[in-house]
């Protein structure tokens, strides 16, 4: 089991049961578990949605869409069954928070899922785990079985007249099925490619029924919000960004790990105080603020609050909360290549700009990094990425294009340093690091 980290600045909401044996359903109940859902049954959907709206909770999957509002889009009446979908596909490089939730607090996901169901009138929930998290499925399934055994799932949950079923499912190893509509295709047993929108999932989703899809962390936050009250939760965070967030700090930090901090927490402080600064006291070269798809920030750009709006203003995105710290030993061309390798590999291949764009970015960057680059390649890399941006079928294309553009714009010198058949000038420095 991964070692848990902590820091005094942390505000433990979602992570408060981490390391406290809450996979055991009785222990979970002891730790205030399955309280919120009983209250929700009692007070009804309007109340739930009002609390969720008041909480200013914004989706933790990456796009930061207000959760309460999303739930309110689901039509009250529907011919087809409605569904709740928990997105546990967590695959964005630099992101490893949902993993901890499933590992330490699976019942929080179940409870949030039931509440979401009550809020929108769904009777079935699906928990979709990333293919590589197959080992977490055992934990999740045990938790589901325990909840059924206690009458928390199934017919007439908690003695009420509500029914709710939960089914768990794993992916088959594709980042793209984290995208909500591709996830639905995958769950339906089809090839993991996105769907045309509109219609949006809230209207036509899984099996054609209205569907609420939320990130696992979003869902795990729900019971806490109802327990403490939406407004109280909102107050923890910053303006229009309620509550806390699990930040996954990785890379060249002294104390990497997952920390739960209030929304809007200063990035610089997060790196230098919470994560103990740059490893070995080296110079900071760059920070990827929200998972590999978010444009890189220069050290001069990191004195910002970590919420969706402030990071957006700084020209990047809060994304999935994966903060990657890069020190002076990193070759940014190689980092760009590594990033594009990922997106090339994970492109579902459906649309031309992403399928071909990532393929050729990878081909070009591979040659370029190996010393075979020409000056015009630098512009061409940027040109390719700019011509993908905003034109692909789903945001994966943007996820590949945006960081690439930022790498070229912000680290053009490093690209130029690779010209004229020179081997990577940063390679030596890296070897030193490793030694």
């Amino acid at each position, binding site marked *: 089991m991964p070692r848990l980290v902590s820091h005094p600045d942390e505000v433990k909401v979602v992570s408060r049961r981490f390391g406290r044996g809450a996979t055991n359903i009785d222990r979970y109940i002891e730790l205030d578990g399955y309280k919120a859902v009983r209250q929700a049954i009692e007070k009804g959907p309007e109340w739930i949605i009002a609390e969720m709206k008041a909480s200013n909770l914004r989706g933790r999957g990456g796009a930061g869409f207000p959760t309460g509002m999303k739930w309110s889009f689901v039509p009250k009446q529907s011919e087809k069954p409605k569904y709740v979908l928990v997105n546990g596909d967590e695959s964005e490089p630099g992101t490893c928070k949902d993993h901890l939730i499933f590992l330490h607090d699976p019942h929080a996901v179940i409870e949030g899922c039931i509440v979401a169901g009550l809020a929108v009138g769904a009777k079935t929930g699906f928990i979709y785990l990333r293919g590589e998290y197959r080992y977490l499925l055992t934990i999740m399934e045990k938790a589901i079985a325990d909840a059924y055994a206690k009458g928390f799932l199934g017919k007439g949950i908690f003695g009420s007249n509500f029914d709710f079923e939960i089914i768990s499912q794993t992916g088959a190893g*594709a980042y*793209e099925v984290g995208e909500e509509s591709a996830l639905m295709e995958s769950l339906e047993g089809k*090839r*993991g490619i996105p769907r*045309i929108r509109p219609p949006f999932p809230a209207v036509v989703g899984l099996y054609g029924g209205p569907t609420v899809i939320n990130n696992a962390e979003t869902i795990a936050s729900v019971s806490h919000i109802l327990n403490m009250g939406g407004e109280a939760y909102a107050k923890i965070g910053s303006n229009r960004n309620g509550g806390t967030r699990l930040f996954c700090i990785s890379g060249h930090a002294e104390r990497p790990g997952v920390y739960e901090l209030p929304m809007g927490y200063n990035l610089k402080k997060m790196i230098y105080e919470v994560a103990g600064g740059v490893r070995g006291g080296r110079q900071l070269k760059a920070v990827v603020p929200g998972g590999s798809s978010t444009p890189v920030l220069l050290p001069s750009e990191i004195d910002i609050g970590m919420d969706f709006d402030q990071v957006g203003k700084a020209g990047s995105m809060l994304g999935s909360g994966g903060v990657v710290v890069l020190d002076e030993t990193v070759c940014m061309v190689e980092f760009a290549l590594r990033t594009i390798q990922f997106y*090339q*590999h*994970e*492109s*579902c*291949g*459906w*649309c*031309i*700009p992403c*399928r*071909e*764009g*990532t*393929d*050729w970015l990878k*081909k*070009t960057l591979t*040659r370029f990094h190996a010393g075979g680059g020409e000056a*015009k*390649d630098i512009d*061409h890399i940027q*040109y*390719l990425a700019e*011509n993908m941006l*905003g*034109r*692909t*079928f789903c945001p994966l294309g943007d996820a590949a294009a945006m960081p690439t553009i930022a790498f070229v714009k912000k680290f053009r010198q490093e690209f130029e340093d690779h010209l004229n058949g020179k081997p990577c000038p940063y390679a030596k420095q890296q070897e030193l690091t490793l030694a």
Partner: protein
Amino acid sequence: MADVTLTVDGKTITAPAGTLLLEACRKVGIEIPAFCYYPGLSLQAACRMCLVRIEKMPKLQTACTTQVTEGMIVATDTDEIHQARKAMLELVLANHPLDCPVCDAGGECELQDMTFKYGAGGSQFVEIKNHREEQQWSPVVFFDRPRCILCYRCVRVCNEGMDVAALGIQQRNSGSVIAPNDQTQLDCEQCGMCIDICPVGALTSDTYRYKTRPWEMTHVGTICTHCGDGCKTTLGVRRSDDGMQIVRGDNRDKSGLNGEFLCVKGRYAFDFANNEERLTQPLVRQPNGEFAPVTWEDAIKIVAQKFRVARDDRGGASIGVIGSTRNTNEEAYLLQKVARSAFGTNNIDHHRTTDYVALTRALAGKKHRMASIADAGSAPAIFVLGNDPTEQHPLLAWNLRTNVRHNSARIYLANHRDIKLQRQAKSSIQIPADGYAAFARFLGGEENSVFGEDAKALRDALRNEPSLLIVFGSELRGSAIDALAEFGLSLPDTKFACLGDYVNSRGAADMGLYPDLLPGYVPIEQEGGLRAEYGGRMSQQAGLDVAQMFEAAARNELAVLYVVGDDPAERLGVDADALRNTFVVVQDMFMTATAKLADVVLPTSNLYEKSGTVTNTFGDLQLVKKAADRAGVRSDLELIVRIADTMGEDVHALVPFGKGVRADMGQSRGVQSGEADRHGIWLAAHNLEPKLSPFDPNAVLDEIQRLVPGYNFDRMELLAGTSQHVDADGSGVMEISRFANRPDGAMPSADTLFTSGTLGHYSEKLNEVETFQAKKSMVAAD
């Protein structure tokens, strides 16, 4: 839906709300490039060629998925859009092999055209393109992955259009690849729709690949010679050593009643024309029993003399004539006219595959009750009784599937076996193989314990249909058709169609290849009309049908048997002995079982090598145009005329050609070519007399139009290529009850998707496909 008004490139346009922006733009001539969008198939939004700027939208939007809304402001002609298109093409070309000089699609490739128009003249890419070896998936389908641009049209046309789902997508990213769902080979209907719809040269057909360049072919639109649906096919022909050879069949221009549809036969089974066994010299049996080639003049002289002597010495009734279901209307009409008015015999028949007579009789006097095949694609409800359209009437099946997909049509089936169309049916019941007639009466209200609740429910559902199309197969004949028609006519609005097997089965029937019926189903005894035209030699007595002719021959009562494009010996298992005392003349392409028994064999052209008209089983009259040519053969029309002429008949009385112009017997080939047809259109449009030769089918068509009931169509429309629905409505049929119990003599061919009667035996490709699919189904059954 209500119209909305929007602005595109500063132009105000209106379109019904809900129209796709791309379609709305195309309607007003604003072209939006598209690879993955394909009218009638599901939306993909995959190629991103159709991106446009819509005001108030942060990103460019795909015009192929965006519906027009009131006040929408769209830009398609800006630098931003030009750049987006160009970049998309650069990307798609990056991994494209650019082997255009040898690619089948070169010259008719959408990628080439787009690149030309939207410009991606250069490339900055220097790395190696991804490569995969070409694969063969079936006897007809090849796949070249590097050329594929992943537009998914093939997958969709197979899934949605064909309801076969033989193709899928495997892998992901730039490794994505179209692949057969059945491992490495296609287990499918081999229709080639996937090849046809491919915008590039990724899918190619065995018959065409690497054969020619598109611009080296002449493209001639004519009608498929196989089943009774009558698809228009555009044949690509090229000069060969001995004529003009067909190298490709498709209908990319989507003209004709079939749109772009063709089945495996229409697309590939033209190769019988090039079969090595093709006869190209007239053959006359020698005293030693062997055939020897003779000149055309000699052959015709021998035949004409035999015919004349038989008629003069033993009477017209000693001559038997069997016509074809694959000849043109003009040939069928002329054959029966010559038989009746020159040979003086009513012993004329053809291979009947269904009972058109009964339907005509049942609908006598009713107007507009016969459906066009287009109705199968638009009627709100269709009842298919008997037959297996997927196997026997592929276009009908396509129309029905499309109708269900696009218009949510309701299909009802009653059949004695499981048929694939059940997948689209709203309800479907099984009835005993010998229970069709009883079922027809049951529909009419006759209770019958054989038919249970499901049958009653079906009957109720049919009764509740405000508008119904009833299509039935050869399982129903004679009085069963009367019963079905009576039921149908009791409903508010019903049309009918009866399914015959070959391209001109219906035409042969309409043209009077019957011993007891004149063209238009007019009883032979009926005074006036055709009788008056055909002159005094015509007998008033009904003649013999096919089976009776062979019986008469066996009794030594048939002096001459003239078989024009049919193989009754094969079908009926006639042995040589039966024809011992009969002089047999066979006009055919091949040494068929019947030809083997003949005294004279005259090699003829097939439907692809002649002009004229044919009528599909729904009564849609269409123009046939000469596409191919073969040295050494003559059309049946020409041979019929020349035999009659050599017999001393007045050719002008037989064919109303060029009044006062001398018959130019040597011009047949020229006059029959497409060239002459074009002149014909022009001359006809100017009210001039185009028919210079008695071999001009237009001359015969004049008479058909003048005399055959139901054949009152728009000639100019027909010549321009629009099918004309002929309603042989039986209004000429007077003594209806008299032939109520006439023998129908129908013998359905039981062809499948991969067979086509005798002709099919000579198509190597069709045989290869049949063997391939037979193996597949054996494996599947294991």
